[in-house]
């Protein structure tokens, strides 16, 4: 085994410079400190994304994206196809865990100020990836063509229609017409299996290259302590030490996914009927709950604006501030922690948690 790798590596090195990769892996280290735990969430999100790609490809073998057949084909997958229930449930559960780990990753990066100079582009590519993940969630939710998904899509796309000037076109572009119909399903399927995977691949490559190029970020307080010689800089090699820990986490995640899928199989619900009333107790996926609850609480008029538009405007502004935070909080680049931005993060997290809890009441 050893002699084989000793022969293969030079062969590859002469042809594609694989030695550089080996050299890189040997040099890459991961800092050790009391916040090191948070370093695992990016890798965990990546792992769950790979699970999504693989189970998604398996689902494509049987899924049929038409309003007549979509619901029945998913029903066929979970009842007839051997282990279809497992594949479909793992895909749904993994999607939800992925959104969760992405949230954790994002907030940990935020609170540890890892977005600060020179990692602005890493933050922005990460935020774009986050939006792509939400897009995956929103488009994938419709594909089984069940009642909940049908109305969630109606509401979600209607919100897009509230954008000034281009809203109407945007709504028609998303729905493939004025209403949510089979045309919408066809489009969402295309977004889910072609457009978003393409975008995600490019953004992910950028994100990972930037992370490798810049190395792991240290929390500002620790960076200062090390610079002033108050604390030694401790680290472990990425390969194999950190990677093996990563893999242990991924292995555990696979176990958790299998257990969740087996014990709590993902429900399919009832087939969508475009001419039935929205059922009571309807609500979107948990990661959209805070927006859902906000929309529910907003009155018809906020000052001179329509409630839904005011909500959309508020969320858009908040998202813009969030994406631009490395530039707004540029002082963090000089190692200065601004309380305001920490407070903003606490407020955002608190708002999301409280609104989601209210929606679940």
């Amino acid at each position: 085994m050893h002699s084989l790798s000793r022969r293969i590596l030079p062969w590859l090195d002469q042809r594609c410079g694989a030695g550089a990769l080996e050299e890189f892996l040997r040099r890459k280290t991961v800092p050790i400190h009391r916040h090191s735990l948070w370093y695992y969430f990016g890798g965990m999100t990546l792992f769950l994304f790979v699970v999504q790609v693989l189970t998604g490809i398996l689902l494509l073998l049987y899924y049929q994206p038409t309003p007549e057949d979509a619901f029945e084909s998913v029903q066929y997958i979970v009842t007839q196809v051997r282990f279809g229930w497992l594949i479909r449930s793992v895909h749904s559960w993994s999607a939800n865990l992925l959104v969760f780990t992405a949230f954790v990753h994002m907030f940990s990066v935020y609170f540890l100020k890892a977005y600060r100079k020179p990692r602005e582009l890493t933050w922005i590519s990460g935020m774009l990836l986050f939006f792509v993940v939400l897009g995956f969630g929103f488009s994938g939710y419709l594909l089984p063509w069940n009642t909940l998904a049908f109305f969630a899509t109606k509401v979600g796309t209607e919100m897009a229609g509230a954008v000034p000037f281009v809203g109407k076109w945007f709504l028609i572009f998303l729905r493939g017409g004025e209403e949510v119909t089979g045309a919408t399903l066809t489009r969402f399927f295309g977004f889910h299996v072609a457009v978003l995977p393409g975008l995600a691949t490019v953004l992910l490559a950028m994100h990972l290259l930037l992370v490798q190029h810049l190395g792991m970020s240290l929390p500002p307080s620790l960076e200062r302590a090390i610079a002033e010689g108050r604390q030694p800089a401790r680290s472990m090699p990425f390969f194999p030490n950190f990677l093996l820990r990563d893999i242990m986490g991924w292995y555990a995640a696979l176990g958790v996914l299998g257990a969740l899928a087996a014990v709590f199989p993902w429900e399919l619900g009832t087939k969508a009927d475009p001419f039935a009333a929205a059922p009571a107790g309807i609500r979107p996926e948990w990661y959209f709950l805070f927006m859902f609850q906000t929309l529910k609480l907003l009155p018809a008029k906020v000052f001179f604006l329509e409630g839904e538009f005011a909500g959309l405007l508020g969320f858009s502004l908040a998202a813009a501030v969030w994406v631009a935070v490395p530039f707004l909080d540029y002082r963090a680049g000089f190692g200065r922690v601004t309380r305001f931005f920490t407070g903003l993060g606490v407020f955002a997290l608190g708002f999301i948690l409280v609104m989601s809890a209210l929606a679940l009441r």
Partner: protein
Amino acid sequence: MEIRNPSPAGNSRPGRRWVNLLLGTGVVASIASFIYPAIRYMLPPVVGEPLSRSVVAAKVGELRRNSGKVFKFGSKPALLVRTADDEFRAFSAVCTHLNCTVQYREDLRQIWCACHNGLYDLTGRNISGPPPRPLENFQVHIQGEDVVVRRGA
């Protein structure tokens, strides 16, 4: 940021400037001609909706007093309500807030949207929750056994 021009003398010649302008305009115009069809392609053609002005929403005996029914009116859902006072009323069932389909709540004797808890009274007026506008009203006629719903003139 400083932009260095590799050949300052070359660009100042009027002939070269014209060539650059023409080339630039040509390239931009050609790119626009590639993008325009793609954008038009993305927006589906408007389907001439068969202008259904009236539809048989239900049979008279089908609905109890104090109950409602969602029916198909053209390409959109509509709501027929038989009130407790034995009156038929019809509305668009599309919530004016975010496009969900409303329903008649027998316990409240009002029209309710399950998505964001919007309420309308039995004239279609938005009375509580987020809906910004009333529901569109339709005319109801009884023709023999049929409850016929018509779009207002």
